[in-house]
């Protein structure tokens, strides 16, 4: 048997690896000068660059296991192999050069892998170990011992040695692994990148493995033949006692005898993969069916339960309780505002009542401008030196101020609504006194929330009045938004209720004070007589007169200074007339 010619480097590499495996070399690592680890949802990659400019890469990417950009198998994202590989990368991410190589070399694939994954993991492990071998040192060993290819191959090599040798051909790694299954490792001759001839009359007692080469059999081979990435020619008169396995190779038979089986591993693997795809498709189909059935059942259950009468009653009651709770909170806030900022509330309510359109427009504009003003304020304060301390206050307080203004506005509108409600003299609401600010605010809040409560009540009736429920709910929301918008605008117009000149006298706070006097007087009248009441009325009327006189005086001053314009004067004249009429009354 002889070799026709060698394909140089691959053989040398494989040879060296084989020698090293049989005769362990001195511990000298191949120097890693650069490493890269990339991890994402679909990828976990290790790239190494050695001092001799060689590069090595293993990547689990988009379902494929790639060794030096050659696909050697597949994996499923998150499976045991993927997890084990990511775990290894996580362990070595902080290492460089020697420690990195050592950590990679000592990696052992987990034992709980499936058969396919186990083979892939073993291939990856072997590829890493092969890539990290110190080539130069091994070459020295080979030269010093005078080792030749023949002597090595005649040695009874272990299977791991054989695989290490073959790992030099990473592009054929996967298929070679399958081709070498069950091959007896005791007598194997491996040729990588070489053409081999078994001469006529020659008898070879070994399994022949030819990678990336041509094997020409004219004599007898007592063992198996494995050819990967090459060709096998079996001549007339030749004999092979074992199996013939071809991986990515061609077979030319000119007669001859093969006593075992002739297998094309690639075709078999294609068949297996086809079967695997078919199984995967069936599984996916099954999963889809199960999921669809589960969704359908869930939907059906939901549909049935939606017609359960108690469910709607429960939901409606829960909604009513929720609204009741909201009402109580708002009422408490409203009473607080009446108590602590009653005058401001009266001024805002007056502006909202007499100029609702203008207030709404201003409120709408204010709502849109609030955020830009806040940001602009921050910028202006940030760039001005003295403003930087103010910025600390501005950032939290401005949103709070806007929220407070919206709340005050809502309460002002609620007060107006409450007064209006009282004026209607609805049956059952006779007790409601619109001039009592607390009652007015609370009644107004209730009225504004009435539509929401109505929606809950309709909901309790069942699913058949869904449209009506939605309509009420929408009305409730719109009422709330309208109240906040108009009220917010009124707050802006009246500067938070401090510009009482924009309010009508009849709505001003001292009217509320007068009302308070009235009620006190009314309460006392029952016990102490009408005269005291008349005194109270007279005092209150005098307050009005004084206020009107002050306003008139201011108007005259402004007119004298040329500040007041005509329409405003007319407005004040009307106001004066109104005050006089009330005085007469």
């Amino acid at each position, binding site marked *: 048997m002889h070799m026709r010619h060698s394909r140089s480097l691959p053989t040398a590499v494989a040879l060296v690896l084989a020698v090293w495996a049989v005769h362990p070399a001195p511990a000298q690592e191949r120097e*890693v000068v650069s490493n890269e680890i*990339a*991890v994402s949802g679909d990828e976990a990659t290790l790239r190494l660059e050695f001092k001799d400019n060689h590069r090595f890469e293993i990547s689990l990417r988009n379902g494929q296991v790639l060794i030096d950009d050659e696909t050697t198998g597949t994996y499923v994202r998150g499976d045991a192999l993927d997890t084990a590989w*990511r775990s290894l990368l*996580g362990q070595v*991410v*902080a290492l*460089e050069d020697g420690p990195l190589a050592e950590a990679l070399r000592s990696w052992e694939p987990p034992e709980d892998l499936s058969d396919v994954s186990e083979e892939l993991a073993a291939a990856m492990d072997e590829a890493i170990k092969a890539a990290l071998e110190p080539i130069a040192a091994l070459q020295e060993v080979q030269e010093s011992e005078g080792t030749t290819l023949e002597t090595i191959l005649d040695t009874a090599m272990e299977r791991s040695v054989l695989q290490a040798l073959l790992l030099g051909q990473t592009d054929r790694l996967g298929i070679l692994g399958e081709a070498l299954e069950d091959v007896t490792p005791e007598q194997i001759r491996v040729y990588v990148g070489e053409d081999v001839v078994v001469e006529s009359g020659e008898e070879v007692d070994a399994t022949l493995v030819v990678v990336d080469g041509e094997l020409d059999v004219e004599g007898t081979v007592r063992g198996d033949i494995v050819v990967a990435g090459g060709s096998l020619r079996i001549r007339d008169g030749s004999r092979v006692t074992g199996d013939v396995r071809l991986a990515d190779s061609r077979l030319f038979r000119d007669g001859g005898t093969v006593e075992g089986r002739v297998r094309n591993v690639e075709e078999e693997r294609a068949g297996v993969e086809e079967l695997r795809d078919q199984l995967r498709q069936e599984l996916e189909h099954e999963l889809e069916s199960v999921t669809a059935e589960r969704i359908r059942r869930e939907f059906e259950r939901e549909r049935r339960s939606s017609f359960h009468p108690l469910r709607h009653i429960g939901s409606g009651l829960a909604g009513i309780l929720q609204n009741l709770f909201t009402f109580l909170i708002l009422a408490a806030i409203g009473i607080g505002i009446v108590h602590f900022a009653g005058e401001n509330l009266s001024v805002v309510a007056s502006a909202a009542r007499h100029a609702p359109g203008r207030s709404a427009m201003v409120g709408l504009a204010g709502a849109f401008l609030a955020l830009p003003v806040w940001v602009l304020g921050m910028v202006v304060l940030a*760039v001005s030196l003295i403003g930087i301390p103010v910025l600390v206050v501005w950032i939290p307080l401005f949103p709070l101020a806007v929220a407070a203004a919206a709340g005050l506005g809502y309460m002002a509108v609620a007060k107006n609504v409450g007064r209006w409600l009282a004026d209607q003299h609805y049956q059952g609401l006779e007790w409601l006194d619109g001039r009592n600010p607390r009652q007015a605010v609370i009644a107004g809040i209730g009225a504004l929330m009435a539509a929401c409560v109505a929606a809950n009540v309709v909901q309790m009736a069942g699913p058949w009045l869904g449209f009506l429920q939605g309509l009420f709910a929408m009305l409730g929301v719109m009422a709330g938004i309208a109240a906040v918008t108009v009220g917010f605008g009124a707050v802006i117009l009246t500067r938070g209720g401090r510009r009482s000149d924009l309010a009508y006298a009849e709505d001003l706070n001292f009217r509320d004070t007068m009302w308070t006097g009235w009620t006190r007087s009314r309460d006392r009248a029952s016990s102490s007589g009408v005269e005291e009441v008349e005194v109270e009325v007279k005092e209150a009327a005098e307050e009005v007169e004084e206020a009107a006189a002050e306003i008139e005086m201011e108007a005259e001053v402004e007119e004298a200074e040329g500040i007041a314009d005509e329409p405003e004067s007319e407005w004040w004249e009307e106001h004066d007339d109104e005050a006089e009429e009330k005085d007469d009354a």
Partner: protein
Amino acid sequence: MHRRVVILPLLAASALVARENLWAQSWRTVTMSRQVDEERAVDVEVSYGAGRFELMPADPGVLYRMELRYDEEQFEPVSEYGEGQLRLGVEGTGRRIHFSKGEKLGEMTLELARDLPMDLRLECGAVRAEMDLGGLSLSNLEFKTGASESRLDVSEPNPIRMNEASFQVGAAAFTARHLGNLNADRIQVDAGVGDLKLEFTGDWQGNAEVEVEMGLGTLTLRFPKGLGVRLVRDTFLTSLDSQGLIKRGDSYYSPDWEEADHRLTVRVEAAFGSIDVEWVR
């Protein structure tokens, strides 16, 4: 020590991405490093668009070590090395970079060789940067940043003399400490709008000149006692709190200017803002 802190989140991230993408962003973590081979000097160019950037000296024998976490839908890593030129960072893949509310920003941690003389150019966009150049052998330094919050520290002296350190800061808060350790002949700071704090402490090896140009903002100059300081200003509507300095002619001098071992001349051009001088031990 630093590395452990950085790696743990990276590992956590890698463990996460193995299972599910928790956000719409597609996160990718990359760790790459290279050993020093036979280089005698290296030009390093680092660019980073948006996120958190950290720079520190590497362990001996390491040329660079970079840890990235980025959205691979919008960015891609840059790692080029050859003939003494090293280019690192993250670049956008499209014309625009989109950040929605609630989206997380990427991270980049870079370690550079200590003992290899290098020209270092750093270019950051909207970045929150923490940089420690202590112990790096820098012959030139250029740092550009847009809208960012950047903190630079030179915790250990630069073993070689630096020609020039240049800082170009857009609208940002920029703090630099131990600038004396830069061992620079000249330091140039060009700031648009923002808050600048320059601390000239450290181990001064020679005299130096500092030029600061500032548009709008506050400039705080912190000098160590014993350093001869001369402050020359050309300002418009800018206040100066020149505590510890004596005005002579158009300049302000520290009292020990004449007998100081090392002298620092600071020229400030500013339009609007303030200049505060502070002294530290």
